[in-house]
C-alpha cells in the first residue's frame, strides 16, 4: 500500500482517490441541487458565508482528487480532458454546473409549472408564472396583424402554395435542372407577387389573370417555331411583352370595366401585419437585394470610371447610414419628390428601401469573393475569347459566389432581423404587434411573455437559416 498524498493524486491509489473525489463532488452537487429545487439547506448549521461557498470548496477538492492522468478508465479520462484539465478550469466548470442547477427551478416554474395555459382573459392568469393564455388569445394578431379574421385563410393558402412551389426544385429531374435558376430568379418571384397581389391583397383578379393566360397560350404556341438556341431569351421576353400589349394597348377600353371584378375583399397593406408580414417583407427584400448587390459589386470593380465611382458612392452611402433613417426618408421625404397624383404604397416603399440598403452590404460581400479569385481565372477566361458577361456568368461568378455563401447568409440574416424596424413607417410585424398588444388595457403587464415568444420565433427562423447556409457551404465546398 502506497502512501496517500492528497495534494498530488496519482495512479497508485487510483480507487482511493477516485471514490473520495467522486463522493465529494456528488455531495457538492447534491447540496446545490437540494438547495435550489427543494430549498433545503443541508449546511445551515454553518455560518452564512462558509455555507454559501461550501459546495464550491467541496466540489473543487473532489475534482482535484479525480484529476489523474492516464487512469485507464475511459469515462474518467474524458471528464478530465474536457472539464478538469487544471484547477482554474475545474473551478469554472463547477461554477457553470452550479449556475445551471440554480437557474433551472425558477425557469421551469416560470415557463411550465406555475404558468397558465388555459383561459381567454387576464383573470385566468393568477399564478406567478408565465401567462401563455395571453399568447393564445393574441396568437392570430401576432401571426396576421390586423388582417380580418375571416380572410386569414387567404394568407395561409398563399403561403402553403408558395412553399410548395418553392420546394418544386427538389423534385426536378435532370432534364429540368438547368432551368431551375431561371425558375427561382424570374418565374418564382413573379408567381409569389401574383399570389400576394391577388390573394392576400385582393387585387382585381380576372383582369390580369385573363390577359396572363392569353399571353401564355399565344407565346407557347409561337414558341414551337422558335429554334431552341433562342428559346430561353424568347421565353424571358415575349410573354411579358404580349401581356403588356394586351393589357394596355389592345383591350384597354373594352375590358376595363370587366377588370374591376374582384374575387376577394380588398385588404390594404396597412392592415397586414404579424409574422406573415415579416415573411413577405423578408422574401421580397431577399429577392431584390441580391441582383442589385451583384450589379453594384461588378460596378465597383468596373474599368469605367463613371460606373465605378457611382457604385462606390452608392455603396458607401447606404452602408454609412442607419436603416431607421433610410425608412424615415422613405416615409417622410420620398413622397415629396413624387408628382402630386402619384401614390406608392407604404409597403412597396419599405421593401424598396430595405432592398437598396441590404444590396450595399451584399455588394461588399460579393466584392470580397471577386477579389479572392486569382487573376489567372480572369486571364484564362479572356484567353478563351469570352467577353465580359460570358466570363462573369460562366467562370467568375460561380466561383466567387461559392466562396461568399457564409457572408451572404449573414447579410440575409441581418435583413430578417431588421424587418421589425418597419414600425417606423407604421407597419406592424410581429414585434410591432407585441407592442400594440402590450398596451391593450385588458392585457397590461404581460410584456415578458410576448417578448419571450417573439424571441423564440425569431431564434427558430434565424437558427434554421444559419444551419441551412452552413449546409450549403459544405455542399459547394471545393478543394482549391
Amino acid at each position, binding site marked *: 500500500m502506497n502512501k496517500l498524498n492528497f495534494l498530488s493524486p496519482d495512479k497508485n491509489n487510483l480507487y482511493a482517490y477516485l471514490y473520495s473525489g467522486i463522493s465529494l463532488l456528488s455531495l457538492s452537487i447534491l447540496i446545490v441541487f437540494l438547495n435550489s429545487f427543494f430549498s433545503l439547506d443541508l449546511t445551515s448549521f454553518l455560518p452564512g458565508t462558509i455555507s454559501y461557498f461550501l459546495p464550491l470548496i467541496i466540489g473543487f477538492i473532489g475534482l482535484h482528487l479525480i484529476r489523474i492522468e492516464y487512469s485507464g478508465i475511459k469515462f474518467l479520462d474524458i471528464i478530465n480532458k474536457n*472539464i478538469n484539465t487544471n484547477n482554474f478550469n475545474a473551478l469554472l466548470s463547477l461554477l457553470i454546473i452550479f449556475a445551471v442547477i440554480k437557474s433551472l427551478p425558477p425557469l421551469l416554474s416560470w415557463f411550465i409549472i406555475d404558468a397558465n395555459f388555459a383561459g381567454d382573459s387576464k383573470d385566468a392568469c393568477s399564478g406567478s408564472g408565465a401567462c401563455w393564455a395571453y399568447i393564445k388569445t393574441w396568437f392570430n394578431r401576432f401571426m396576421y396583424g390586423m388582417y380580418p379574421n375571416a380572410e386569414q385563410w387567404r394568407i395561409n393558402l398563399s403561403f402553403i402554395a408558395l412553399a410548395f412551389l418553392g420546394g418544386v426544385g427538389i423534385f426536378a429531374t435532370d432534364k429540368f435542372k438547368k432551368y431551375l435558376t431561371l425558375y427561382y430568379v424570374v418565374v418564382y418571384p413573379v408567381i409569389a407577387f401574383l399570389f400576394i397581389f391577388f390573394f392576400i391583397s385582393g387585387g382585381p383578379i380576372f383582369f390580369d389573370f385573363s390577359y396572363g393566360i392569353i399571353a401564355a397560350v399565344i407565346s407557347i404556341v409561337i414558341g414551337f417555331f422558335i429554334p431552341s438556341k433562342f428559346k430561353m431569351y424568347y421565353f424571358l421576353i415575349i410573354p411579358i411583352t404580349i401581356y403588356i400589349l394586351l393589357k394596355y394597348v389592345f383591350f384597354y377600353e373594352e375590358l376595363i370595366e370587366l377588370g374591376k371584378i374582384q374575387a376577394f375583399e380588398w385588404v390594404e397593406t396597412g392592415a397586414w401585419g404579424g409574422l406573415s408580414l415579416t415573411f413577405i417583407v423578408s422574401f421580397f427584400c431577399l429577392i431584390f437585394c441580391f441582383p442589385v448587390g451583384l450589379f453594384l459589386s461588378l460596378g465597383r470593380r468596373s474599368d469605367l470610371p463613371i460606373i465605378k465611382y457611382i457604385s462606390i458612392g452608392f455603396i458607401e452611402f447606404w452602408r454609412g*447610414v442607419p436603416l431607421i433613417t433610410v425608412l424615415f426618408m422613405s416615409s417622410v421625404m420620398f413622397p415629396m419628390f413624387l408628382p402630386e397624383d402619384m401614390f406608392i404604397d407604404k409597403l412597396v416603399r419599405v421593401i424598396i428601401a430595405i432592398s437598396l440598403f441590404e444590396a450595399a452590404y451584399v455588394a461588399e460581400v460579393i466584392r470580397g469573393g471577386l477579389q479572392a479569385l486569382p487573376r489567372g481565372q480572369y486571364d484564362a477566361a479572356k484567353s478563351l475569347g469570352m467577353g465580359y458577361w460570358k466570363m462573369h456568368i460562366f467562370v467568375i461568378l460561380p466561383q466567387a459566389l461559392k466562396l461568399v455563401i457564409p457572408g451572404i447568409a449573414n447579410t440575409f440574416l441581418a435583413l430578417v*432581423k431588421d424587418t421589425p424596424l418597419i414600425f417606423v413607417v407604421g407597419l406592424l410585424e410581429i414585434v410591432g404587434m407585441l407592442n400594440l398588444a402590450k398596451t391593450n388595457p385588458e392585457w397590461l403587464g404581460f410584456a415578458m411573455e410576448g*417578448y419571450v415568444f417573439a424571441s423564440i420565433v*425569431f*431564434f427558430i427562423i434565424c437558427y434554421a437559416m444559419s444551419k441551412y447556409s452552413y449546409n450549403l457551404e459544405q455542399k459547394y465546398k471545393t478543394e482549391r
Partner: protein
Amino acid sequence: MENRGITFGYGFLTQESSFDVQFSLIEYDGSHSYFRAYLVGLLNTILVSVIGIIFATIIGVVVGIARLSSNYLIERSAAIYVEFFRNIPLLLQIFFWYFAALRALPLPEKAEPMFGVFFLTIKGFFIPAFIWNNLDIFIYSVIAAIIAIFFVRAYAKKKQENQGTQTPVLLISIGLLIILPLLSFLLGGVDASIEIPVIEQLSKTSFTFKGGLKLPPELISLALALSLYTATFIAECVRAGVQGVSKGQKEAAASIGLTPNQVLKLVVMPQALRIIIPPTTNQYLNLTKNSSLAAAIAYPDLVLVFAGTALMQTGRAIEIVSITMLTYLTLSITISIFMNWYNKKIAIKEK
C-alpha cells in the same frame, strides 16, 4: 416640391426649439436653439455608442476566448450565448430589456442598495458622483501621463533595437498613470469628494434619489442590448482571428525559447489582431448605427430628438433627414478612417 408649399433652407437651426429633452449631457432647455437640440442628440448618440463599444469589446473578447477553451462546458456556454443573442433581432432585445426586464426593478423607496451606494430602481440607476475642485489640473495631469507613456514606448523600442534589452513598458505606463494624477492631488490642489445618492420624498407616494449621478433606464437598456448583441459578433471575430494564426507560428516561437506569455504577446496576438481588426471595425460601425434604434424606447438620441421631435415641430423633412444622414455618414467614416489607420499600422510591413 414647390406645389406642396414647401420651402427649403437651414435658417430654422437658429430658432428657439421650445421642447425639452429629458436626458442631456450639456445644458439644454426649451429656450435653446434647434442646433443645440441637435448637439444634445448627437452627444447622447456618441455616449451610448462609446459605452456600447467598450462593453461589447470586453464581453466579446472574453466570450471569443472562451469559445476556444479546451473546457467543454465553457466552450458550450459561450457558444450558446453567441447563438442565442445573435439570432434575435436587436430591436426585440432592446424592448425586452426596457419593457420587460427593467420594469421588474423595485421602486426607489423599496430599492436595496448594492454595496451601500448603488441604487438600481425602476426610475434608473443611481450611482455616486465625484465633485471636483480644479478638475482641469487633474485632466492635464492625465494627458501629461499619456504623452509621457508615448515617450517611454519610443525610448523602449529604440533601446531594444540598439541593445536588445527589454524595458518593462507596461509597468512604467501603469506607474505613470497612477503617480502623475496622484501628484496633482497632493501638490496641484485637486480635490474630489464623493456624493452618495440619498432618497428624497417628492410627494406622498413619489420618491426619487437626490445627488449622485442618474443613468436613465433607457440608456441602460440600450447600452445593455447593444453590447450583448454586438459582443456575439465580436466574439466570432476574435475566435476566427486566434484560430487564423497557424500552429507552426506558436511552435516556432516556443522553440526559440519564448515563454507562453511572450508567445501570446509577441507572436500570436500581433498576427491575430491583423485578422480581427477589420471585421471588428465593421461591428463598431454597426453598433453606432444601431444605436439609432434608441428612438423606439424614447432614449433622446439624434434620431429621436432631431429627426423625431424637431422634424415634427418644424416640418423641415428634407433638411433634417439629410443632416441626420450626413451626421451618421461622418461618424461612420471617422471611425473607419481611424480603424484603417490602426489597421495599416499593425499590418505586415512587406519590403
